[in-house]
C-alpha cells in the first residue's frame, strides 16, 4: 500500500484506516522481535494455581507451538493473552504479561480493545448461526464498519486467505453451520483474520478435524506466517514440528499441579536436541 493511499484511508476512517496503520506498523517492526512477553506470570483459578511463574518471549510474525501433557495449563496461558478469563469467577493473574510492551492486565486496559488486536480460534469450530458472509463480516461490524463495499472486499480477502473462497464463493448466503467441520474451522479462521488482528491464538485448532482438513489448516497457518504472530496449542507433535518456528514445552508440577515452562527453543532444536531431560522424555513418549 502506498503512502498516499494509506493517508487517504486514514481520512476515510473506520476499519480501513486502522488496518492501514497496522500494516505500516508491521512493516516497521522486524519479524522476530518480541511481540508477547511473560515475566514470572502466574495464573490462579480461585485457590488453585494453574500457571507458575512462566517467563517466555513470543516472537513477532512467527508461529509458536505450545505443547505439553493435558492439564499443564496451555489453554490457560493462551486465554490469558486475550483475557478470556475475565468472566471466570475467581480467575486471577499475577506477574507481567505484555503485548508490544503494554501490560495486558493493566487497570486501564480495555479487554474489548485488546481482543480486537488478538484474535482467537477455538478447538471446536464455533461459527455463528449466520450466513458464511455474515460470519466473516462480524468482526468488521463489531469495529463499526458500515461501508458495504469495504466489508465485502474484506470478506473475500479473508476467505481467500483462509483457503475457503473457492469452496464457498457461490453460497456466501448459506449458513456457516451447514459447512463441514474442516470448512467450519477455516471459516472461523477467516472470521478471526478478517479484521487483521496482530496476534492469532489457536487452541488445538485441528483436534476436531480429519487428516486432510488438518493439512489444509496447516497450509493456511504457513500462509499466514509473517503477517500474524501465531501462538498455537497442539497435542500433535508432528504438527508442531511441521508448522512452528518455536516450540514451548510445558509441564505441570507433580505436587501442586501448577504449570511450568520447561523449555522454549527453535522447533528444530527442541525436537532433535532438547536441552531438558523432561522434554526428551515427553517427546519419546515416556511420560505425559
Amino acid at each position, binding site marked *: 500500500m502506498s503512502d498516499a493511499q494509506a493517508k487517504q484511508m486514514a481520512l476515510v476512517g473506520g476499519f480501513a484506516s486502522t488496518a492501514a496503520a497496522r500494516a505500516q506498523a508491521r512493516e516497521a517492526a522486524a519479524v522476530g522481535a518480541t511481540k508477547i512477553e511473560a515475566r514470572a506470570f502466574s495464573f490462579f483459578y480461585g485457590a488453585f494455581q494453574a500457571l507458575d511463574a512462566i517467563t517466555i518471549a513470543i516472537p513477532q510474525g512467527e508461529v509458536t507451538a505450545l505443547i505439553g501433557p493435558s492439564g499443564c495449563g496451555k489453554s490457560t496461558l493462551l486465554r490469558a493473552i*486475550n483475557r*478470556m478469563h475475565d*468472566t471466570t*469467577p475467581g480467575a486471577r493473574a499475577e506477574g507481567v504479561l505484555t503485548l508490544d510492551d503494554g501490560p495486558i492486565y493493566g487497570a486501564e486496559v480495555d479487554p*474489548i*480493545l*485488546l*481482543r*480486537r488486536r488478538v*484474535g*482467537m480460534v*477455538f478447538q*471446536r469450530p*464455533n*461459527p*455463528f*448461526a*449466520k450466513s458464511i458472509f455474515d460470519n466473516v463480516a*462480524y*468482526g468488521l*461490524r*463489531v*469495529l463499526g464498519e458500515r461501508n458495504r463495499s469495504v466489508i465485502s472486499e474484506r470478506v473475500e480477502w479473508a476467505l481467500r486467505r483462509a483457503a475457503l473462497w473457492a469452496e464457498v464463493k457461490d453460497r456466501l448466503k448459506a*449458513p456457516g*453451520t*451447514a459447512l463441514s467441520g474442516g470448512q467450519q474451522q477455516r471459516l*472461523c479462521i477467516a*472470521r*478471526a483474520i478478517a*479484521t487483521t488482528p496482530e496476534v492469532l491464538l489457536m487452541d488445538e485448532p485441528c483436534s476436531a478435524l480429519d487428516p486432510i482438513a488438518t493439512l489444509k489448516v496447516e497450509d493456511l497457518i504457513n500462509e499466514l506466517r509473517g503477517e500474524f504472530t501465531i501462538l498455537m496449542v497442539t497435542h500433535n507433535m508432528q504438527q508442531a514440528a511441521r508448522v512452528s518456528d518455536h516450540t514451548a514445552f510445558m509441564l505441570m508440577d507433580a505436587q501442586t499441579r501448577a504449570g511450568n515452562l520447561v523449555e522454549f527453543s527453535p522447533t528444530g532444536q527442541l525436537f532433535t536436541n532438547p536441552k531438558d531431560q523432561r522434554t526428551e522424555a515427553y517427546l519419546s513418549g515416556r511420560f505425559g
Partner: protein
Amino acid sequence: MTLQTNMLNYGGRRVVDRTLRGCTVVATAIAIIPLVLIIGYVLVVGGSSLNVAFFTQTYMPPVPADSGGAVDPATGLPADFAGIDVSGGTLADPNAPVVPAEPDLTQIQAQGGVLHGIVGTLLITLVGLLFALPIGLMAGIFLAEYPSNSLATGIRFCCDVLSGAPSIVIGVVGYTLLVQQARTYSGLAGAVAITFLMVPTIARTTEEMLKLVPHAVREAAMAMGAPKWYGTLTVVVPTALTGIVTGALLAFARGAGETAPLLLTIQGNSNLSYDLLAPMAALPLLTYKYIESPFPAENQLAWGTAFVLLLLVLGVNLLVRVVTTRIKGGV
C-alpha cells in the same frame, strides 16, 4: 455358566420390561382419551353450529323458529317475538287478566355471529403481546445473561409466582388498577391483564432458550472483541430465536384462551368495536354468555365459540411447529 445366569436374568428382565411398558401405555391412554374426547366433541358439536353468518355477523337476539328471521324495524326485535303469544286464545272475558302463553324456549332460533368476539380476542391478545414481548424478552435476557445476580433471583421468583397465580387474581388486579381508575371497562384493561399473564411465560422461555445456547458461541463473540451487549443481541439471541418465537406464540395462545382476567376487565360488547378504551367482546366471554343463555339454541352457539377458540389455539400450535422445523432446517 455365566452365560446361562444371564439368560435367566434376561427372561426375567423381559417380563418386567413388558409389564412396565404395558403400564405406561395404559396410563398414557387414560390421560389422552378424555383429551381426544373433549377436542373431538368440540369439533363435532361446535363445527355443526357454524355457518357463514357466525363469522361475519355480530350479536343478534334470537327469533322463533318460523319467523324467517324478520326483524321489527321499530323495536329491532324479531317481528313476531311477541306473538309467542298474547293473541292466540279466545278472549271470552275482556276483563280477565291476559295470561301470556309460556314461550317454548326450544322453538327459539339463534341468529347472528361472533365476529365482534373474534375481533375482540385478536385485538386484546395482540395488544397484550405487544406489551408483554419487550418486557418479557428483556427480562429473559437479563435472567439468562446475568444469572448470578440477586436481582435476577428475585425476578425469577416473581415470574414463577406470577405464572402460577390463579388468573382470577390477575383479573382482580386489572379491575382495581384500570377499570376502577378509568371508571370504565375496556379492551385495554383486558390487554393489560393478559400482559401480566404473558410476561412470566415469555421471560422464562426466553431464559431457558438462551441458556441452551452453547457457551462457545458467547466466547466466539467475546473473542471477536464484541462488547457483551453486542454479542448478546447479534449472536446469542438470534441463535435462540426459534425457541423465543415459540415461547411468544405459546404465550399468545394461552392469552387468547384466558377467561377470568377478561371477565373482570372488558365486560363484553354486543357490537363490533375497535375502540380499546371501550368495553369489548372476546370469545371466551361469549362462550360463557351463551352457555348461560336460557335458549338452548344459544347454548349451542357456545360450542361454536369454543370451536373457534380451539381452532385458534391449534392454529398457533401448528404455526409453532412450522416455525421450529423451518428455522431448524435452515440453520
